[in-house]
């Protein structure tokens, strides 16, 4: 009897150890854990099970929390390069790519620290300017103060923008294999384009059963909600 119980316990342990890693990570997410590495690993797990749409969704979720998550960015680019809709994505000029790379490198936390440093610098420059010897020319401290102030205001602007986008990310991913983008919110509406799994969309409006989206090449049309997964789940 004892041996039987021990055998059952042993089997349960072995089964537990061999449980799907993806399932475990999804359970963590279900429990409310928000972590860029967790999302990234879930994305890789989905890719390994052949679900490129869900993989892209989780890479985007990872980047939503940490825009400087380099592995997630690289894997997202990789999945896009393999998708059927890869030609729909715009090719950005080199300088614009540098700007976006810099913008992504400055994730929300880095931008917050930068804003704090610039705030301190602005305060110091203001102090220097206000307590500057009145008998001397004030050109230099004024110039430095204005430059630092502009930098500070820019960083605060970017910080606000990033914080807002993190909370209100309007991107979504197509999770069905092949879907028609339609001119209206009905199956009888004219077909505008054909989109495939893993296409990244920008959601403009969401209704009960349909949502108005923009395809990667800018086409605007309606898709069924069941074909789309949101980076920020509106149900949450």
């Amino acid at each position, binding site marked *: 009897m004892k041996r039987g119980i021990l055998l059952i316990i042993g089997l349960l342990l072995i089964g537990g150890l061999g449980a799907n890693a993806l399932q475990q990570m999804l359970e*963590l997410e279900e429990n409310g854990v928000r972590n860029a590495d967790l999302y990234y*690993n879930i994305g890789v797990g989905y890719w390994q099970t052949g679900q490129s749409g869900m993989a892209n969704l989780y890479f985007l979720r990872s980047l939503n929390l940490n825009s400087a998550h380099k592995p997630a960015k690289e*894997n997202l680019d*990789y999945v896009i390069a393999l998708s059927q809709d890869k030609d729909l994505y715009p090719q950005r000029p080199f300088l614009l790519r540098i700007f976006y790379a810099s913008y992504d*490198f400055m994730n929300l*936390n880095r931008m917050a620290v930068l804003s704090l440093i610039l705030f301190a610098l602005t305060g110091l420059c203001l102090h220097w300017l*206000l307590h500057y010897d009145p008998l001397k020319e004030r050109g230099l401290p004024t110039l430095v103060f204005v430059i630092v102030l502009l930098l500070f205001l820019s960083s605060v602007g970017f910080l606000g923008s990033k914080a807002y986008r993190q909370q209100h990310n309007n991107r979504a991913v197509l999770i069905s294999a092949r879907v028609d983008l339609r001119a209206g919110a009905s199956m009888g509406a004219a077909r505008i384009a054909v989109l495939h799994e893993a296409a990244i969309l920008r959601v403009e409006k969401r209704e009960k059963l349909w949502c108005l989206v923009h395809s990667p090449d800018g086409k605007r049309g309606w898709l069924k909600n069941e074909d789309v997964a949101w980076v920020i789940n509106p149900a949450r």
Partner: protein
Amino acid sequence: MKHSYIWCLMILLFVPWLLGGISVKASVNKYTITSAERLEYTIEVSSESSFSMSEPSPPSIPNFSFVNMRSSSSSSTSIVGFKRTQRISRSFVYYFMPKSEGKSKIPAQKIEIANKVYSTPEFEITVVKAVGGWQSQPSPAIDPFAAFNDPNLPWSANRIQGKTVLVARLPQHTVYRGQPLIVSYYLITDQMVRSFKLEDERDFPGYGKSIYEQPNSLEYEVVNYEGKRFQSALIKKMVLLPNEVGKLQVPRLQGTARIYEFGYLSQTLSSQEEYFEVLPLPVSNVPEGFGGAVGSFELSESINAKQINLGEAITLSLRIAGKGNFNQFANPSLESAAAQISNPLAVDRINAGIEGSRILQYTIVPSNKGVFRMPGLKFSWFDPASRSYHSYQSPQTEITVNSANVISYFSGLLEGSSPKTLRPMLSRPSYPQYRSYLHRTWYWLIVALLGLAIVISVWQAIDKKRRRSDPALYLRNKAARNLKRWLRESNEAAKRGSRDFYALAERSLARFLFEKYSIPIGLSTADKLQKLSEAGINPDLLQRCAAFFERCAKARFSPDEIQAIQISEDMLTLNQLVMSFVADPGKGEEK
């Protein structure tokens, strides 16, 4: 209404021009035939000018079997009223035999001539039972190719001479298990075979196969076959990859050749039986990690960088080129505890799965900075030519891994968005909950402190500016501000009826005089009065001030109890005195 008539007229006028004078007609010899009769379906194309067209394929008629066809062409010229008219026509006659009684429909045929498509009408054919005893024709319905002997057809079977065969040829009859074997199928004929339609391919157990080459048309060359001169055309080449040992039979092809012999006739052909022997791979000296590769290979490898920053990836490319069973061996694995290594991405440039090159790309991300020693890659294969195993061992390579920096984040910018492999999962012991700095208390505490520091700095600067622009006014205001505080202390002592009032009052007045007239606090009362006098203070006020100082000195050192009412009165005196000093600017302040 008028417009519609005009349009109809225009269309009628332009139709012949649009069609270029080509007419396509279809007809049948009978709409109702007996089961013993033959159906003739004719397509006739005519035009006033020459045209070129390919032979239409025979229609597929339910319940009928296609027997044969013939084609003919004719041209006629007529001159009427000095006008020369030419007519060129081609006709195609298809012969069918009914299989059973009933109704069948000949579908409309699409015929393409000079990039235009013409359509023929549909026909409905009824097959009825043959009248008993009446057999004017033989019944080839059982075997459509029995029409060779039909004396009613415009050719005669005894006029067909020649030989057409389908043969399979092997470069060798003995191979090793896994070694690719190319089988070539040739059509060999001394007749006018215009086309060959491959209809069936029968496989036998023991191998996998893939197409190596399949021409679209018959390209003849002269060969010597069975001691005679024949024409030979390649039909198909296929690759066999044996996975069993022993005697195996090659696939048998079957198809129909269309032979031109005063008209077209069809002949079914099958390739002859052909066998080959498969030997097992030698069991001695099998190298460790042998993955089943059989063939002749050349290997080389390359690394995209020998010095990287921590967090960056390096790509190791292993190129396997040659001829062998590319689709049957496992890719060599690369493992290291000091790095994350992806599964290899295979980039194939392989023909029919047996010859060409395969590039395996491994993405490696070292875990630590320092010197990373690349793990060795080993690939083994069996070479049938030398009948021995060979191995490739990659050389030891050291990669320098520097500390990560900000620039390393941008290292992939110039590469564009074309990563070669998916990066693997990250090894994390736990996943802490994400909270941005904006949601943390310490962040906003620092912001508040910095804001406070800025406010203090600004206030000081304003204060400094006031003192600099009007020092007297500044001092006066400051004294008035401080006086309120000092008087408040004295007032509280007076309310309590405390003897301390006199000490506080004396000190308050002394401080006030110091701040307003810069009279040192440490001076004696007489010296203070002297300084006040020098400052041009009203003598009456000076006298009252002297009296108050004297009163304070007496009260402080008096052994008697002081009444609270007395303290209140003195408090009132102090207030009046201070108000008088505030009202009297003095000599120094007037300046």
